[in-house]
């Protein structure tokens, strides 16, 4: 089944639409999808108030949702999804793919903050830029993404991969502050540059930065050089310096910071 949602106009107060998920849509008719409830501020509205819904039932396989247009004021698209796919031909709002455990989300534009927060499986691809806290832990929690893969073609902001314990995040562009803060596992690759605090309080896993790190965290110690270091699914080309840390936070940390030599 394939459902197409076309935004009906500009959205004022942001809409909380965790119902836009293949697991929820599966087996529903067009009328039932139109009646799914979303919160806008203190009020509940049917999904049809914000979207024109079309459904094509053919094809037995998994559920696919296509969003035709900008939904940057729609939050929680694909939250907790387990299977199926979502394609957004535009930008998406905050919490896109939060807590997803399977399936695929592709956003052609940008995503807001908290994309892929605490995700445990699946693939989230963003062709544009991302906000803060990509794949990170929720506020107060120390465990972020545990598995799965996030690919950001553009830039991301601060605290990308905060508390990540497993899985992969690959950023094509630059990141801002405290990338990989409290990372304890998994892999983060930044093709561009980072600002300060990269890998702060890291205890495990790997953060590779191919561009420049403006200010390297003081708790990292040199651990040799490597040619084309191997990471799980990612190719790194060139000569990298390996640093271990963060000794400022832990006695025996296993975090690796790979910095490309320029």
């Amino acid at each position, binding site marked *: 089944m394939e459902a197409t949602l076309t935004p009906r106009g500009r959205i004022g107060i942001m809409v909380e639409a965790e119902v836009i998920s293949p697991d929820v849509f599966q087996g529903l008719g067009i009328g039932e999808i139109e009646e799914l409830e979303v919160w806008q501020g203190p009020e509940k509205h049917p999904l049809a108030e914000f979207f024109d819904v079309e459904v094509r039932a053919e094809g037995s396989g998994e559920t696919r949702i296509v969003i035709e247009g900008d939904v940057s004021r729609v939050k929680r698209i694909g939250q907790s999804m387990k299977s199926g796919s979502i394609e957004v031909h535009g930008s998406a709002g905050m919490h896109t793919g939060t807590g997803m455990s399977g399936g695929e989300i592709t956003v052609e534009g940008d995503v807001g903050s908290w994309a892929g927060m605490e995700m445990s499986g699946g693939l989230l691809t963003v062709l544009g830029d991302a906000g803060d806290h990509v794949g990170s832990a929720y506020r*107060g*929690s120390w465990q972020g993404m545990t598995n799965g893969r996030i690919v950001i073609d553009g830039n991301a902001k601060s605290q990308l991969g905060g508390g990540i314990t497993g899985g992969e995040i690959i950023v094509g562009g630059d990141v801002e502050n405290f990338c990989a803060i409290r990372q304890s596992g998994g892999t983060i690759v930044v093709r561009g540059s980072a600002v300060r605090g990269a890998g702060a309080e890291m205890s495990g896993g790997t953060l590779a930065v191919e561009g420049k790190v403006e200010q390297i965290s003081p708790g990292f110690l040199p651990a040799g050089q490597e040619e084309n270091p191997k990471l799980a699914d990612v190719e790194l080309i060139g000569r990298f310096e390996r640093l271990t840390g963060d000794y400022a936070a832990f006695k025996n940390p296993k975090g690796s910071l790979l910095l490309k030599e320029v």
Partner: protein
Amino acid sequence: MTRSANMIIKNGYVFDPLNDLDGEVMDLFIRDGRVVGDLRAGERRDAKVIDASGKTVMPGGVDSHAHVAGAKVNAGRLMRPEDHYRSVREKTRLTHSGSGYTIPSVYKQGYDYAAMGYTTVFEAAMPPLEARHTHEEMRATPILDMGAYLVLGNNWFIMRYLKEGEIEKAAAYAAWMLRTHKGYGIKCVNPAGVENWGWAKNVAGLDEPNIHFEVTPREVIRGLAEVNEMLGLPMSLHLHANNLGHPGNWETARDSLMIPSGLAPANRSEVDEPETKLDCRRRQTVYLAHAQFNAYGGTSWRDFCSGAPELARYLNQTEDVVIDSGSVPFGPATTMTGDGPAQHDLYVITGQKWSNTDVEMECGSGVLPFLYLKTSPVHSVQWAIGLEVLLLIDDPWKTIMTTDHPNGGVFTRYPDLIAWLMSKRARDETARECHKWAYDRSSLGGVDREISLYEVAVITRANPARTIGIAHRKGHLGPGADGDVTIYDLDPAGLDSNDPSSIRSAFGRPEYTVKDGRIVARRGEIVAVPEGRRFYTTPYVDEDQELEMMADVKEWFKYYTVGFANYPVPERYLKNPTPIAVNRPLEAVVRR
């Protein structure tokens, strides 16, 4: 209450230990919110009738030790957003929304307790300076009748008076403080040790004098226990013993419990005496908080083991002690206590986020998130100890079931505790799932005891009510008692201890929770939201003593950051204030 609350609960199996009812099939009558022997014909006609045939009927649950209101609870909420976003309650036509798992918001907390069949909950530690905050939160908590124990074990005035041997003045001060802050009883947390925490230290033994005041834990425990009985408070001294959370501390607990021995329990509260079969006034002179945290054997975390058998042996020999269990059901918790140094020790072990507060001349506190894991050897032993203290002490009238919410676990896990206590099979199943230390380092595996529904009623309502001196209206179903009744979908005739899941679900979701003769919860859903009462005590002391004591207080008040006029909690802070007069002139004991 808007309408007269007359009710007939028909044909239930009634478990009411204070009236010696062990599952008798009978009818219960409630008139205007209170239990009566019968209703007149006219009253019967318009009474609400509940058919409880084949169901278990008990008095409303009473939690005598939980952390549910005040500054440290709120500090926990503030530092744990991650505790809230996954545990959300939607608003309904009647109820507020709420969130939080281990530290729920005040609304959610009230609804969750009521939905689980509890109608009365006492906050276990109210620092005097945070009394306003505590009362504000209790005021906002729906449905429940509440009260709060005043923390006095490291109070500068108390320590000075005890050092100088001025026990009457210490009593006068405690009485004034209870009246001033609308406190219910005396709580003593790590006596003499929290004061040392102001200098990053603790006390090492019961006879180590603390810094500056040079009083020992022994002197504080003995002094406050004497003060408690001089004032004739409804509850005995409530003790959070020294050396909490450390391997080998069961000896400290036992030695602490011996300190008040010889004192006579004297509950001189002025209340309407109910017609209960058993004496509804307390027997104990010390009530030990969360025994699990003070029943550790071994000398380090490596040879850590249960010390519960040794502690239970002492309890089995003495009549003047009651404990609550502080059991650990595994899973998320938030530790919070007035024992600042104990919380620092936890911080050093876990590296978790940690909040620490010094409450001026009164006490301290710490808060730290915690996760009890079945894979952890130490946590598995803690689980075992929390059940051992309830199963190895023979007389259920010496024990109370708690999780020291939210320290050992969340109160909504009480049904799991009941299932473990009632079913050896449930214990064996869990022991197989957790670290082998659970049975290897405790005696739990060899315990065959399975407690009865009668004993469940003792340790979850009758005894908590009697221990804290509220059994004239709570914890029983005799005439004069509050019309607080819980009806569980559990047929005692078909009770099978090998089916713990049905025990768990029956206690987790009662058919009815009745408060003051009105149904407040039905199968987990809140159907009425009355406002609860706030109990506090107003002890009388000799006026001359009080005048002399007040002169000292005013002189030392310069060290406080608040003005004297802003210190008391006005009665308007309380919803349905329900003072209990204690020790009025005729019977005042003035020792000179």
